[in-house]
């Protein structure tokens, strides 16, 4: 049920546009199509008749303005008729605005080459700023570590609880399941060759050296790395970081170092827990699927798995922890003054820290193998 109507009347070389009723934003789309489909050749004069229009909103007023402009551009003489003062006011308002305001400049589209160059340069700047962060962490703030009194033990304890103690459950469960799955898959293969007992060697080495550290680090990167970014990012948005700086509290001392130290302490412990749980998972499968009793499993474990494999796994912990914590915090500090960048930086923080952990693990793997450890 439309409240307005529109028709055109074509007599000789004269065209009249007759509008009636309440012209509003919901109906003008049809009228616009109708106007665009008109054949304007051979027309000398046009009349836009708004006498019967009782109401004109700004959108329809722009339609009338554009229609008038289009007709004038084709050298057609136009005349706009109206009785209603409100209609006139609205038309004048649109005219005034169209005359006044400069056109919004359209962004110049960049070519692919420009985009690649721009992105490369931005990534390069990002890399530099991360290096600056690491540099500041090491050189400028080293004195806080040397100076025992300035270490924030309370904050460190709080962070150990947050990112360590509270993560015991999820780390245990994840590594238990990983041990279970790895053992189950290899049991199937080993059975074919009747090499059942070698499951102990396999599990022992793969879990202690690689699986437990990496899985723990990935869980912690998802859990604590993202939390660090979001916490510090939110503090940046609410100006809490600025407030700290103006009060002379160095955010590195109050926020950054406690988190890094806490994670460096907790991650090796969590890896130890993950070792235990994953081996238990493997033991369960060996018992049920391969008929290796717990006693036999542990006896064989003692014989073939030397202690160095355990140390190799544990020693990775602090390095992974440092990467996860510093990337998480760095991303938090990179948050800009809008809510979107918290999400963006949290995603980046998790992806980058998992990537960094895997790269670091690869480096360790090559180094240890070449060193014969």
């Amino acid at each position, binding site marked *: 049920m439309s409240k307005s109507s529109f028709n055109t009347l074509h007599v000789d070389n004269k065209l009249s546009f007759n509008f009636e009723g309440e012209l509003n934003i919901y109906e003008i789309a049809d009228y616009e199509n109708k106007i665009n489909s008109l054949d304007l050749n051979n027309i000398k004069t046009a009349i836009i008749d708004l006498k019967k229009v009782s109401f004109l909103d700004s959108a329809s007023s722009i339609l009338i303005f554009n229609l008038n402009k289009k007709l004038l551009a084709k050298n057609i003489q136009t005349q706009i008729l109206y009785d209603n003062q409100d209609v006139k006011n609205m038309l004048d308002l649109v005219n005034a605005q169209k005359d006044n305001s400069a056109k919004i400049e359209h962004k110049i589209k960049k070519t692919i080459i420009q985009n690649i160059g721009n992105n490369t340069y931005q990534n390069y700047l990002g890399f530099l700023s991360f290096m600056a962060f690491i540099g500041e962490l090491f050189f400028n703030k080293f004195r806080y570590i040397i100076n025992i009194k300035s270490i924030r033990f309370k904050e460190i304890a709080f962070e150990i609880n947050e990112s360590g103690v509270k993560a015991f459950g999820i780390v245990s469960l994840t590594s238990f399941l990983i041990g279970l799955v790895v053992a189950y898959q290899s049991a199937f293969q080993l059975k074919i060759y009747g090499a059942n007992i070698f499951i102990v060697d396999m599990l022992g080495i793969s879990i202690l050296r690689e699986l437990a550290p990496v899985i723990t680090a990935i869980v912690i990167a998802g859990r604590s790395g993202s939390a660090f970014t979001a916490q510090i990012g939110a503090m940046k948005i*609410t100006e*809490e970081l*600025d*407030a700290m700086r*103006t*009060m*002379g509290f160095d955010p590195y001392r109050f926020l950054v170092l406690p988190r890094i130290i806490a994670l460096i302490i907790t991650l090796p412990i969590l890896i130890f827990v993950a070792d235990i749980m994953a081996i238990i998972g493997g033991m369960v499968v060996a018992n049920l699927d391969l008929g290796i009793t717990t006693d036999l499993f542990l006896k064989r474990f003692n014989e073939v798995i030397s202690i160095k494999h355990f140390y190799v796994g544990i020693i990775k912990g602090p390095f992974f922890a440092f990467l996860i914590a510093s990337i998480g915090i760095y991303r938090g500090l990179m948050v800009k003054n809008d809510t979107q960048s918290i999400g963006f930086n949290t995603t980046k923080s998790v992806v980058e820290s998992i990537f960094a952990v895997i790269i670091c693990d690869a480096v360790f793997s090559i180094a240890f193998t070449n060193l014969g450890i």
Partner: protein
Amino acid sequence: MNNIIEVKNLKTIFDERVVHDGLNLSIKEGEIYGLLGPSGCGKTTLLREMVMLEKIQAGSIKVLGNELTNISHENAQALRRRWGVLFQAGALFSSLTIEENISLPLIEYTNLSNKIIKEIVEFKISIVGLKSSDINLYPSQISGGMKKKAALARSLAMDPKLLFLDEPTSGLDPISAREFDRLILKLRDMLGLSIVMVSHDLQSIYDTLDKVAIIDEKKIVYEGSLENIKSVNSNFIQTFFAKI
């Protein structure tokens, strides 16, 4: 009276947008000094440069006798204890209660006993007009006006001589805003503060400020008292002060 802050030939450029180009001003001890100007003219940036949150790109700023461009870490730390800053939304530490927020600088920077610290906190709480029953609440549990008062109490914790306020009355209802103005005047007289503030609130500007600096077109277009401000030929001043 001595100049407590001196800004000379300050230049600030963000990406390709010039914010300040050769800006000069001086603030005397004991004044309530306002930074005014159209939005986006760099008032808050100037304030952030004064409190060392933004690096000075060119020119110089001298605060309490310290040149900020090449200040040493130790001097910067000492300077930070001599001023208080009130941020627009308070910026109270959200993980701490009001009491912990106010006592934090006292605990960090002094060897005072807990009993004395508690008394100092209660004193600051009462001069900004908060009830002592509020001090165990967290920032998320109190209203905007209370947050500003608590943040003001925190910025006064170390008894600074210089106070920076970033839009102290924005986001407050008119009654609380006038109350805040009176509080600022009272504190200035009581504690002998010098105050630098950024404000948009015309009423608060007329009620509190001794001197204003109008930033427009990257420079100071007017510096002085409010009385003969309308004689200045500036688009911003003519529209902003037109009503009175």
